[in-house]
């Protein structure tokens, strides 16, 4: 990634999954590292179960806050079909970090549309460099589904232009301030995400 001056991270998922929080944490971490940072959302009715994407860009000087299609370095996909929806925005040498926990919208339950059989397979067939694992199951295994966010951040931490520990500390610091009881479990989630990425 070093040949690009700007690091472009696209976080994609569904309203309520923690997409915006993950993007916020990434932006905050990059800011603390001295980068110029811009972050923007397309999430009009974000809390309503619709598609949510958040763009995080950092580097020497960031101009447009939205990442042009085809220039995403890291796609953080909180859901497999949403990852498939956005994977064409990756650079040829970009990477997708995909949680395979499926979340079908009501239009699928109602039988109006089909959910793809194998979204991860479709991405592999399109030669997308990818790590896919069930972040929902990892979070649930640690005892709290909301940890998906931290699991995903842990997973992408190896791909950032700064050390994974720097991102981890920003996350843990947030919890230390607001919910100290959750520091330990978030550290475990971060490390579990890192480990999952390494083997997926």
């Amino acid at each position, binding site marked *: 990634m070093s040949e690009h001056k700007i690091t472009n991270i696209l976080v994609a998922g569904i309203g309520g999954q923690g997409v915006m929080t993950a993007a916020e944490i990434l932006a905050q971490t990059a800011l603390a590292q001295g980068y110029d940072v811009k972050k923007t959302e397309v999430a*009009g009715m974000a809390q309503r179960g619709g598609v949510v994407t958040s763009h995080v860009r950092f580097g020497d000087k960031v101009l447009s806050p939205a990442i042009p299609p085809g220039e995403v370095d890291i796609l953080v996909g909180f859901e497999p079909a949403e990852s498939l929806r956005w994977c064409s925005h990756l650079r040829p040498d970009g990477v997708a970090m995909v949680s395979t926990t499926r979340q079908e919208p009501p239009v699928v339950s109602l039988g109006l549309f089909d959910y793809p059989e194998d979204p991860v397979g479709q991405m592999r067939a399109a030669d997308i460099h990818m790590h896919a694992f069930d972040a929902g199951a990892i979070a649930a295994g640690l005892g709290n589904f909301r940890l998906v966010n931290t699991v995903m951040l842990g997973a992408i931490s190896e791909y950032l232009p700064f050390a994974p520990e720097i991102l981890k500390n920003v996350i843990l610091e947030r919890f230390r301030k607001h919910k100290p009881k959750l520091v330990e479990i978030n550290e475990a989630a971060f490390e579990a995400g890192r480990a999952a990425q390494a083997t997926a």
Partner: protein
Amino acid sequence: MAAYPGTPATEILEYASRLPEMYSEWSVNEKVSLEVCIGASLAGSRALCAMKHVGLNVASDALLTQTLIGVGGGLVIAVADDVGLSSSQNEQDSRFWGRFAHVPVLEPSDAQEAYNLTRFAFDLSEQFNTPVILRMTTRICHVKGVVTTSERRPHNSGVGFQKDPARLVMIPTNAKHRIPLMYQREERLQQYSEESELNFIKEGSDSRIGFVTSGPVYMHIQEAYPEAPILKLGMSYPVPLEKIRAFAAEVGQLVVAEEVEPILELEIKAAGVRVLGKEILPRIGELAPQVLRPAIGPLIGEAPADKPTPTQSRANVPEVKVPPPPPGSSLFPRPPTMCVACPHLGIYYCLSKIRNKSISGDIGCYTLGAGHPWNALDTTICMGASMGVALGLDKGRTDVDKEQKIIAVIGDSTFMHMGMQGLLDITYNRGNVTILLLDNRAVGMTGGQDNPGSGRDIHGEVSPRVNFAKLCEALGVKPERIHEVNPYELPTMFKALREEVKIEDTSVIITNQPCVLVDFYAAKPPLRVEDEKCTGCKNCLDVGCPAIYVTRRETVVKPNGKEKELAFVRIESSACTGCNLCPSTCGPDAIVPVENFVRR
């Protein structure tokens, strides 16, 4: 500072309200918020009201006369256009208001400029005795960036409210003397705009194309064409036409890139300057780099990407290799949905089961009732329109619609914003309309802000809570035609609705359960489906709750030979909050509470 919540401008007041030394309020609508700010300005304080684009339509009545009287303390109107319609009923260009009201328009291009120009706007307002429009777009409001702040300066005019009827009482004899002053002010602002450093040239080494632009497009152009010279207008009205004329002479081809209407373009062309604009650029949506490139490329000899033309794809011409569609391009849509356990779910479940109805809707989460599975909204126009439209559907009906039941659906906040007057019109004119007033005690769609129905102010402090039943009665609805129901109790809800649509009078059914996103919403233990009892009837899916998932489908042949689709379901317990709506749609009682549940 005052505002009515509206995407993408809501956050302005949410942040401002954290400053205890500054007065801030949620107003009931944008017109009131501007009027409050006019009063505060005349009292000698600086004032800012924030709104989304359509909010300024509502506030425009105040603006178009306020511009005649001028200001006391600086007066700024921050208005955010939803370019690309992420969460709005239309796409508007608020820069028109600058022309209409003869007031200056400032346009930031990123977060830092939003900060700088807001500060500057107050000074400009006081210097020229004018309200100032700070025009933003979604790409300014929903962006976070690095901002360097400067020292805060407390503002105090020290003079207080200056009574001056000839200036402040806009009766015809007074107003006609103010109009020439407004035009003189505009001329001085025109001169100012020509000289202002807010309108500057960013030099570039490749002057084949020169851009005139304002707002976030400035960033998009630099991203797409880093070497192009740009005349960037921080003060986009009055338009510095001489500066533009001089710039045009320095570049090969002048292009004006503006979101979204060709406003600068028309004025530049009227001044006799040769410029390209909406002939090559789209008239809707954002002018992001990927939108600029295919429009600008051909001007500088860059061919647009190969696209098969219709003739090429015919069988009798040599085969052209069409690239495969990118992965994910044929995926199901994921539109916004109502939340799990939303109190509106039961209401729309009932509405979808009523026959021969016409339903006028309004602006809020309940607009989603137009979607699947309910399909129970027939119109949505603007804030409060459900009322007048319903009365019009009643009074304007012809024989074909004689039996049609006219229903209006409106939320608590929208009702107080602009719906109450419509209800008064319905009762005054004896309309045969059944009104569903969905009181969920919050401005739901924008994130659950407080309003007079929640009984809390912007800081969460207790304030008088409006009594909707009494309010409707005061507006002329007969007490026996007003019902307050719990929307989770489907039989009660159904009964009230079925009875009231039959009665030829104005009725109001008020639902009384809070939005699931408010802090005082109390989740109950979740529900689950007993697999062995589920018959696959799909009735529960008609509720439309996103926590209900289909596990398998089956097609069975009924004794009469017809095929029937079955769908067996499960409930996601991590999402379900036990609102108990779906069990009342389940014949075989297959939906039961999860035992010994611990919510984390």
